[in-house]
């Protein structure tokens, strides 16, 4: 653990100094600093990252849902600060069957469509989202295609080489 800490970028120390009370576990990806946080702590942490003048994360770059199968779902946020030019990734893991997360639309207007996409593709529920409708999929479709368990049609069936009914029943 001590070895890992030594390799963390200076931003990790800045965040620790600016937000001493925040509960998160720092880590590293190939590109960015990663903060792992519980769903209940997410809003407080992001609010702190955004409002603290030493951090000033004013731009929500990206939001990525990942299906961790038996470990539930994970949502990754990427924040960027135009003033300081640094990036941080926040990882929130939700247990299986309980994919509720607070919405970030109150902090970042950009979160609106990102959250709608993550909700339809993975089945996240964003509490307090102003417009929780499907975005890319049909409006009445209640499937979550990016879950690993979502079936894929074998191409042989679609082309009629193998027997089977083409298409899905939803």
């Amino acid at each position: 653990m001590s070895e890992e800490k030594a390799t963390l970028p200076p931003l990790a120390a800045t965040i620790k100094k600016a937000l001493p009370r925040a509960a998160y576990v720092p880590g590293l990806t190939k590109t960015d600093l990663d903060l792992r946080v519980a769903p209940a702590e997410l809003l407080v942490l992001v609010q702190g990252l955004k409002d603290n003048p030493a951090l000033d994360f004013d731009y929500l770059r990206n939001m990525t849902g990942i299906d961790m199968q038996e470990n539930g779902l994970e949502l990754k946020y990427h924040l960027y600060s135009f003033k300081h030019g640094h990036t941080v990734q926040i990882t929130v893991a939700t247990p299986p069957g309980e994919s509720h997360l607070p919405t970030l639309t109150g902090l970042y207007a950009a979160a609106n469509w990102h959250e709608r996409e993550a909700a339809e593709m993975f089945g996240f529920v964003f509490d307090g989202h102003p417009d929780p409708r499907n975005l890319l999929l049909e409006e009445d479709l209640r499937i979550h295609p990016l879950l690993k368990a979502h079936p894929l049609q074998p191409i042989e069936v679609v082309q009629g080489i193998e027997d089977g009914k083409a298409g899905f029943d939803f």
Partner: protein
Amino acid sequence: MSIWPEERLSHADTEGFHTVDMTINVGPQHPATHGVFRMVLTVDGELVTACEPYIGYLHRGLEKLSEINDYRQAMAFWDRTDYLAGLLCEQAYCMAVEKLADIEVPERAEYIRVMLSELSRINSHFMFLGAFGADVGSFGTSFTYAWRERERIYDLLEEVAGDRMFPTYYRPGGVAMDLPENFEKRCREVLGHIFQGIDDLDGLLTGNEIFVERCRALSPLTTERAINLGVTGPVLRSTGLAWDLRKAEPYSIYPQVKFDIPVGLRGDVFDRYMVRLAEMYQSARIVEQCLEQIPGGHFLNPKLPRNLRIDDAEAYVRIEGTKGEYGVHAVAKGGNRPYRMKLRSPSFCNLSALSEMVVGHYVADAIIILGSLDIVLGEVDK
């Protein structure tokens, strides 16, 4: 009674005269929406009071397809995202895979990539100039001028990569084949035409008073609001913030070439147009420098594994796409397929700001504002 409509109106009895808001459907099959994009406008007379965008008509499940194909196969889907500059998307994808697997790219390959990607950027911006001119009302004229130059760039790409729009030319670790022998001569030829073409369009559009009057001071965006909305690329730069990922978070060989970041003053539609116009000169400048600096050597890393397997790794790679920050969030968990590939699409994020930007403007201006965002639906819908 006066013949002037204003005076007639002032005399008219407006007591008990009610108007009802009307709903207008625009798209998805409509040339002004630049693809299969649909928006429902609520209008009060000529003024837009609400705008509801609908997307997803071109959703092909890019991210799911990337998960079920191996690293090299999946790349072919990615230049179908921003299909006006497919090579830029390939570059982002390849950079993500290289980051995950710690693959080194030979310098010659980096130069080839930057040159062709910048040519693609010029190509995409030509498309913008042509289509935007048509949006504002130049009908086919700007289109024809823009197409002439795009055709030349496509010809050059075909000579290099074998295909015009979807070359699938880059590989994780380099590019598929070396440049043809006469590339430098041909490229300089095309560049000369490009400079002439930009000047032509500049004269045609910027020199047209009707064009300028329609675009100036239309739908200005402040820097703070643009950042909060997640807007990037030329639209963000038009608000006066010189933020370009090629300089803010340099990648590839961009630190070794000289170029400037054009910025706007007011963030209105005219500034967005001008920023793109100025960017094309800068891109052409980068290509010229690359032609002079390009070193010899390998075009593809010779030590690549035959079957690319990547253990647990995660990376968020971002490049300056033609429309803004083009990001690829890649997660690997062993095996020869990505566990998750997420596209952070600049058009998608810019488009999410649309409904806020068109409210309070005329219907005809709503089309111009949409055009000024320069969306590509392949990228919006994934």
